[in-house]
């Protein structure tokens, strides 16, 4: 009896089915779930975030683009460093424009329309881009075009931070809202699960970011790969 109890303590709390967030399809808008009360949030250390902001240490007045949509913590953190904050809700636009149509993500006209809606900035506008996990759900043609556009709007020596799940055994991965608590801590709020469009291993990622000068990976305990790329 005592042994069983000890085992259960060591195993930690089991996640109940009721607590797990719903699996979201492409048709379900992300922003609807984002404001819900069913978010499961926790804090975790992020070496990628630490390195990303470490690259801008001692500088102020830079331009930072957050593709995860605006939230209070990120606005506070970035503006408190003296930078200008830009916000785009990338996944919201993605869902509004493609609405679950995977084939449409290879259509050059639709791709251009999407990028015109969400990444229409002059070349070399941003010093840093926080892409979080938004690139993970796009089909290859759209993803390549989006990364090329990001490379264009980044300044030379600018940095981009992106997260990708690296577990190939899962059909769905959790979607998060990322809130910056401090330079090395993120509050991650899981609000849904979603199928990644492809597996992102090291080789594929190097190919994806081939137009950038350097690519650096950090693997976290949740098999989440944090990637910093430098233009």
């Amino acid at each position: 009896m005592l042994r069983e109890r000890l085992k259960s303590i060591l195993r930690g709390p089991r996640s109940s089915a009721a607590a797990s967030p719903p699996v979201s399809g492409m048709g379900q808008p992300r922003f609807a779930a984002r404001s819900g009360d069913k978010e499961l949030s926790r804090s975790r250390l992020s070496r990628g975030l630490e390195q990303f902001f470490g690259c801008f240490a001692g500088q102020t007045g830079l331009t930072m683009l957050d593709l995860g949509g605006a939230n209070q913590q990120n606005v506070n953190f970035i503006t408190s460093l003296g930078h200008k904050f830009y916000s785009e809700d990338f996944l919201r636009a993605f869902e509004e424009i493609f609405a679950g149509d995977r084939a449409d993500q290879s259509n050059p006209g639709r791709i251009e329309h999407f990028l015109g809606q969400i990444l229409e900035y002059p070349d070399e506008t941003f010093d840093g881009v926080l892409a979080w996990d938004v690139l993970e759900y796009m089909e290859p043609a759209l993803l390549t075009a989006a990364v090329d556009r990001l490379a264009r709007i980044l300044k030379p020596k600018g940095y981009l931070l992106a997260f990708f799940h690296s577990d190939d055994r899962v059909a769905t991965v959790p979607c998060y809202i990322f809130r910056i608590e401090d330079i090395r801590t993120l509050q991650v709020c899981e609000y849904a699960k979603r199928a990644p469009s492809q597996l992102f291993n090291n080789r594929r990622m190097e190919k994806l970011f081939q137009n950038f000068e350097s690519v650096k990976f950090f693997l976290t305990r949740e098999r989440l790969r944090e990637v910093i790329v430098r233009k």
Partner: protein
Amino acid sequence: MSVWNKQRREEEPFKPLNTPSLRPAPPVPPVETKKETTTLSSMSSMAAGRTEADLLRGGSATIGKAVKIVGQIFSREDLFVDGDVEGTIELIEHKLTIGPNGKVHAGVKAREVVALGAIQGNVEASDRIEIRKDAKLVGDIKTARIVIEDGAYFKGSIDIVKTEPKTAPAPPRHPPVPGSNAAPAPAPAAAPEVKR
């Protein structure tokens, strides 16, 4: 009713139709004039349960949800916009509230901006801006402080403009009296010390 009362009523300032007074006005001595509320819409919703928007409306001038204005708005009092506005809105020393039905396609300048509806245009709020849940703001923001609720949609840039703290005017310094050896008094600290 007496003749005196009739005369009194004639002297009363204009009141909006939505606040009918059934009782005769008590004889009030002439005091300072109250700021009148400019009401462009019926306030019938106030009779029902008061929503947050109703509370925010407060004593502001109101552009109702059935009203569309194209042009420039300058106001020297708080303004609540629940209709459509295209052009510019300037309330330099006052608060602008965009109600849940409000659609503003305009450049906005105000002391404080609270958005519950949709704004498309650049916003300058010298004090603060609040983007409430379900609000939508597309444009560039320049402000001293910002509040973004979860669920709000924002596309654009945020430039935090640090306002210089208002310092109290320095007390006039008396020139030292010749012959006195008293040291000059230390200048007061910029902020009071907080003990924990």
